[in-house]
């Protein structure tokens, strides 16, 4: 350990360890590639994803259509790109919303203690008992989901786990002697929460964000697979799977395999990054002891 480490260098230490983590690096590379594919891909490989072309329905992969076409004549490779945008945007927004709500909820419960803690956490317990997918399906039947609405919906049903996590972190941190020392000289609660507890829990929270995003992308896929996703002509990877599955027996594998692989890659990438982040932060914690 060098003796003159500045905050910037300490932070870059986490980044350095993350990059050194082989699995996390793999995840990062996959993620960047998928982002480029979804957001910059359409600029290079332009296709018409709005109008149907009934003259070119379910063409197998070949010249002009590297991954074939779907049942409405859309080019599958191009469709994979625009669907990726929807999946990634919803995933990231929902993951962030879920973690943010959960972190605040958990920190308040954990630091207040007493009856407030009891009430807040029993609400979480109740929420955990109701399957998120069920809530989502009910909501999706009531409103026609746009990308924004779906992102918020998924975020709102997925804050429970981060809330528990944050509460546990808060309870441990609140017992530390530097918090007691602060309280003893008359330091405020706000100061304790924002200057000490949140900065010290940030590692755990950031790791959780990556897992939340992966979960959210899967949830979008489930909902769309069940036919309650974003409205056509928009689509996402789950919706592509759902439509493609109808033609399995016709041998149209190119309708299922590409979106399936895309989902697996992105979810795995976020999980790898999460694992890497956790290790990177833990090394820092170990050095702190």
């Amino acid at each position, binding site marked *: 350990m060098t003796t003159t480490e500045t*905050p910037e260098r300490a932070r870059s230490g986490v980044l350095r360890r993350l990059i050194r983590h082989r699995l996390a690096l793999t995840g990062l590379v996959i993620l960047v590639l998928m982002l480029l594919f979804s957001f910059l891909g359409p600029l290079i490989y332009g296709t018409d994803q709005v109008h149907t072309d009934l003259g070119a329905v379910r063409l197998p992969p070949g010249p002009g259509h590297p991954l074939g076409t779907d049942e409405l004549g859309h080019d599958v490779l191009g469709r994979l790109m625009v669907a990726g945008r929807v999946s990634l945007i919803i995933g990231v927004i929902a993951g962030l919303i879920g973690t943010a709500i959960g972190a605040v909820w958990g920190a308040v419960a954990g630091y207040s203690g007493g009856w407030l803690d009891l009430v807040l956490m029993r609400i979480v317990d109740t929420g955990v008992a109701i399957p998120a997918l069920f809530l989502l399906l009910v909501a999706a039947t009531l409103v026609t989901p746009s990308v924004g609405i779906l992102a918020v919906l998924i975020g709102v049903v997925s804050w429970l786990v981060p809330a528990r996590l944050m509460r546990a972190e808060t309870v441990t941190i609140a017992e530390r*002697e530097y918090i007691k*020392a602060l309280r003893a*000289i008359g330091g405020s609660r706000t100061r304790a929460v924002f200057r000490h507890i949140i900065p010290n829990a940030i590692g755990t929270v950031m790791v959780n964000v990556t897992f939340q995003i992966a979960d959210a992308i899967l949830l979008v896929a489930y909902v769309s697979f069940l036919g309650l996703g974003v409205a056509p002509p928009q689509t996402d990877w789950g919706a592509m799977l759902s439509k493609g599955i109808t033609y399995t027996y016709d041998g149209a594998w190119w309708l299922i395999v590409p979106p399936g692989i895309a989902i697996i890659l992105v979810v795995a990438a976020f999980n790898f990054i999460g694992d890497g982040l956790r290790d990177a932060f833990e090394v820092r914690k170990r050095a*702190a002891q």
Partner: protein
Amino acid sequence: MNDVLRVRDLGVRFDTEAGEVTALDGLSFSLGEREILAVVGESGSGKSTMAMSVLRLLGGAATVSGSVELEGEDVLALRGEELRRVRGKRAAMIFQEPMTALNPLQRIGAQIAEALRNHDPEPERLTQYRDRVRELLERVEIDDPDRRMRQYPHQLSGGQRQRVLIAMAIGCEPRLLIADEPTTALDVTVQAGILDLLRRIRDESGTAILLITHNMGVVADIADRILVLRAGKLVEQANSAQLFAAPEQEYTRELLEAVPLLGGRAEPSTVDDNGPALELERVTVRYGGGVKAVDEVSLRVGRGELLGLVGESGSGKSTIGGCALGLVRPESGAVRLFGTDPNRAKRREALELRRRIGVVFQDPGSSLDPRMTIGQCIAEPLLVHREGTKSGRAKRIAELLDAVELGAGVADRFPHELSGGQRQRVSLARALVLGPDLLIADEPTSALDVSVQATVLALLARLHQELFFGCLFISHDLAVVDNVCDRVAVLNRGRVVEQGERTEVLGHPSEDYTRRLVLASPVPDPVAQAERRRARTGEA
């Protein structure tokens, strides 16, 4: 004399992320029958690693070299089942933390019986060992063995649990007993009993004992011969009387000098009365509606006075500190800071009172926020009370870092880059940043090595001379209190049993409990320790 244990050129290296670390290097010694060999050293000296390597209990990251012969057999060459036969049968181990060394879900009797069955050539049902278990519990002097056998670990006190572990260890009559800090987690009065028991086991069965400890008083009480380790290397090896009377090596001398002596400071201190800093009047605290943690305690710390509050674990000393700091609200009674009760004062006034106190806690690992720089940690009380400009604060931080002998250069570092002793100095600087009139120090040096403790205590004494704050000094260590404080209050089960001038209370205790406490506190002098043992056992 036959050697039970012969260690030659023992080396242990650990493979870590940061590269290879040498924990032990070229250690050779032997241990004879009926001998108690103490291995002493400060943290990181490799003493526990040594104990673990005798029974090959180190994990896969360790590379062990050299040889360890137990009754002529090389332990390092043993594999699998052969090794299992040796562990517990020919050499047994006693650990530091008796709560985690016992299975909380199994009855005491069954756990001891299992230790016996492990080495029984014809294993029987656990219940078949009942008579032998009772006999063992009697040997380790546990009251009412028949009832204890049916109890679970949490129903026993710490000392009783340690006795159970000793019963398990001696069950198969091993020739060697390895005790790794066996009394560190225990109160002094309980510690004295455990040491007596170990001595008796040695006398009755001729067992050789390898005792690992950091406490020189324990060593003086029980050891025949002593090894001093430092950073994995042997510094000195001598018999007990010789080592304490005339240490050969400079390091050993420093180590012995750093140990605070009970009764080592002769002159009584005189403090003029400058009015009260902290007063507790008939304070009672009850946790969860149950037992009284603090029972009608009245105390007074004058301005510029150092009051030592001593007591064993569970005596309520930290709770009293919490009351003074406003972290614990008393059920009844009054806590007054500089004559005013902050619990009854207006918010602004209470905050003004809190501004005048500083606090230092025990654990250097959690007393500073790991994500703040040292400078930020020290500046926090200034920010809470909105004091000073940015440059003024920086100047104050530099001043204080100089005052605690760290130098202004560490202000930009993070806590994990500092050692435990350095972190406690930073805590002290933070406590003093507002120029307090009262300092609450709750076991400020208990987690530190003796040499580090000595420097931190010297620093505290110097700062007290210069700044003249009142101080409530909470400690379990009578010798430390004797060296630091002007007056002493002795706490037992939430009550103050005795308080008064230091030389009076610790030198000529008038209460039975204080006398027992003083006699049980080991002093690093084998001759004096033998006398004290006679006085203690004669009294009992």
